[in-house]
């Protein structure tokens, strides 16, 4: 089983090749260059380095979203283009799930946070029970206060991860009432290798999709759509 996994949903861009139980190569960059400039050169490099070919891949996996709208589309367009040529299915792995999967085996609450702007975070709640990955709260876009409230209600220790940590650290410290920790650097960003491992689980459950139909999960409408809905709602209330 061979998987090419791609994640360009956040500040980090990465690619990994999974082959029969091992990560054969992984390349991750957290630098100011745009993902458009780094992603395909990284993919090219890992195939060259491992003397392998994208044509041999059985699946192309990509971070499904949420995340940076543009980042997600760079990942999707790349994955869709590759999958189209090599004629392989795709696996779409929810971004926040893959982030949580970095902390495999952790029996505390895992709370990934990505900065979603407008005071919101892309987040979710996860844990491992007897080494099985459990989704407590599916990924969502909410106010940081709301997710902390939820954690406080559960009342168990929590470990935070994700590129939203530096932005919301102070807010978390201020509001949290349970024991907490922040994941160390090597576990605190999206990793294509974790995405590949989780993609394998999805694949084994039959959760594949044709490349033609693959589209990101934004968890949010565009600003123009939001404003249009808001206008229509106001008009409706006026009429009633």
């Amino acid at each position, binding site marked *: 089983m061979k998987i090419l996994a791609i994640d360009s949903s956040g500040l980090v861009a990465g690619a990994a090749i999974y082959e029969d139980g091992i990560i054969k190569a992984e390349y991750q960059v957290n630098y100011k260059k745009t993902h*458009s400039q780094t992603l*395909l050169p990284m993919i*090219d490099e890992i195939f060259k380095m491992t003397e392998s070919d994208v044509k041999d891949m059985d699946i192309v996996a990509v971070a499904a979203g949420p995340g940076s709208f543009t980042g997600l589309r760079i990942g999707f367009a*790349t994955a*869709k*283009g*590759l999958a*189209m040529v090599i004629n392989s299915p795709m696996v779409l792995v929810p971004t926040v799930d893959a982030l949580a999967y970095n902390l495999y085996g952790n029996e505390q609450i895992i709370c990934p946070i990505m900065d979603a702007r407008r005071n919101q975070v892309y987040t979710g709640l996860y844990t491992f029970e007897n080494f099985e990955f459990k989704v407590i709260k599916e990924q969502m876009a909410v106010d940081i206060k709301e997710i902390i409230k939820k954690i406080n209600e559960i009342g168990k220790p929590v470990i935070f991860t994700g590129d939203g940590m530096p932005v919301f650290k102070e807010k978390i410290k201020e509001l949290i009432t349970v024991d907490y920790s922040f994941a160390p650097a090597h576990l605190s960003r999206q990793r294509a290798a974790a995405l590949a491992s989780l993609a394998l689980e999805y694949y084994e459950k039959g959760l594949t999709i044709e490349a033609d139909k693959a589209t990101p999960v934004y968890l949010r409408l565009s600003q123009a*759509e939001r404003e*249009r809905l808001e206008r229509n709602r106001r008009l409706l209330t006026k009429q009633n």
Partner: protein
Amino acid sequence: MSEKDIYILAIESSCDETAAAVVKNGRDVISSIISSQIDIHKLYGGVVPEIASRKHIERVNQVIKEAMKEANMEFEDLDAIGVTYGPGLVGALLVGVSVAKAIAFAAKKPLVGVHHIEGHISAAYIENKELEPPFISLVVSGGHTNIVKVLDYGKYEILASTRDDACGEAFDKVARVIDLGYPGGPKIDALAKVGNPYAIDFPKASVKDSPMDFSFSGLKTAVINYVNTCKMKHKTFVDADLAASFQKSVVDVLTEKTLKALKDHDMKVLSMAGGVASNMGLRQSITNMCEENDIKLYIPSPILCTDNAAMIGAAAYYDFINGKRDGWDLNAVPNLSF
């Protein structure tokens, strides 16, 4: 042709059209698929960049596959992948650029980034096999207004540009003022046909002391002011007369400056390019000017004037045979200069 034929898959996603085409030797369109998003953007009175990008990612594979299927080709049969990398909406461009790079990488084909305007200019090669540089091209679209001297394939000299709005943009804005909806160009054109172009005296879309520059912003403001003044004074005006007078003001300046460019550079061949080249008023005026001055005129069919991938395939071919190749780090450049 004794040498091997060159087949290019071209991809275009710079604005609100997702398009793919297979073009042979830069001149023969084997297939050309255009998926327009116009109905969605109409709801918002103009192109919404984020929605455009979302639609591109949904449609891009189907459009490319359809183009390949219609051409009856496999990716390995291609010689290169061409793609628009600017100018345009960055999020929209990135979809085309990323998918083109991925296809070129997986199929082990060279990648050629194409300038969108070079694409528009190259559209004229498709239906006119005898057309060869040098010639003058009048590029008029929603994003661009240029008079360009095509020195050779891939070699250009810009003779005139707009200082502010593109002329297509002015059409859209004026259409909005009189509630015609989006896209405004075709609607103003249709209305202008039944209006009196001499009814209202609007300023010319040129720049004082700069004979080769356009300015559409002042004209647009004059139209808006005229409409507002009428409303304030409870005076009525005829939409068709306003459309005809505005259009005449635009068309006169475009025609005048194009003729000046032809004369100054002693050129006898002109082509038109871009979405506004479909405007009947402009076509008529330029056609008359060319007849009077013994200029050979090439105007692409409307389907080749608006955004399409066939024109990108034509431009990519000449870039390709000139040896242009791009790397896997090719980025979208929203304000790419010419």
